[in-house]
């Protein structure tokens, strides 16, 4: 049986988002040394896009490009950096459930399955829990 190769990822967000989210995930699931974190802080849009592009070049494709929010400046830079790259999978709205699911499954699943799975967990992680609702 062949085991799929680990799917690489790059984390991009405003301010301390990427670094902070990863550090929380590390506190839960153990150290991670192969997910570069990028911020818009102190970077022009061109420079951020160039750094995302060189990050993707280093990691190789297919790869996940995990971005905090759609239609922000980090998203625009990620879109520009991955323009024309069908195997760069840009996901937005990245949250802790999504990232943890990614870390738990990146060695186990192929990229298409992995993307579907992390999106699903990211979505179901967003929920209301209230006494009396039966949850």
């Amino acid at each position, binding site marked *: 049986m062949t085991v799929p190769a680990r799917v690489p990822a790059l984390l991009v967000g405003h301010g301390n988002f990427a670094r902070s989210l990863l550090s929380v995930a590390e506190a839960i699931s153990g150290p991670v040394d192969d997910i570069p974190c990028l911020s818009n802080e102190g970077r*022009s849009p061109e420079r951020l896009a160039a750094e995302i592009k060189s990050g993707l070049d280093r990691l190789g494709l297919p790869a996940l490009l995990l971005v905090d929010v759609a239609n922000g400046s980090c998203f625009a830079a990620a879109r520009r950096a991955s323009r024309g790259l069908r195997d760069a999978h840009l996901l937005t709205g990245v949250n802790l459930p999504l990232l943890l699911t990614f870390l738990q499954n990146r060695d186990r699943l192929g990229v298409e399955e992995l993307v579907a799975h992390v999106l699903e967990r990211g979505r179901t992680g967003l929920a209301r829990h209230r006494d009396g609702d039966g949850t």
Partner: protein
Amino acid sequence: MSVLLVRIDDRLIHGQVSVGWATHLRPDLILVLDDEVAADNWENDLVCAACPDSVRARVMRIAEGSRFLSDEAPSADRIVVLLRGTKQARLMLDGGFRPQSINIGGLHHHEGSRSLLPFVYLDSSEVADLRYLADHGVGLSAQDLPGNRSVDLVPLLPDPVR
């Protein structure tokens, strides 16, 4: 037609504009004046997708947009104008549209630039562009978000290199 805000921001439409300023000013239209975006459908779609649903977005070439804005065409539109840099603002002025003031909302660190404010980095050609605008009677204020302090940039501009 009323122009509510003319803003220089290297990110064009992004959160500070689509959430911060759009909520505060309630424009009908965000008009991006940019020759590169206007010439590239992919870029055009990316930039317009960042516009909030309640506001229309349109990209025009700078020459075309300057004519449009100086035409005083009768329309009820409340407009926010976005430019990616000082060069584009200068071209807009030369194209015939001179706003009373321009908001500098974000020019981030780049090669050869110096920081005037945490979100305003200028290189020598940008300083020259801004002097040109100021010399033509355009006010220059730096302000990232509506709730934050507005800073008059003109006295902060470095002296021209002799």
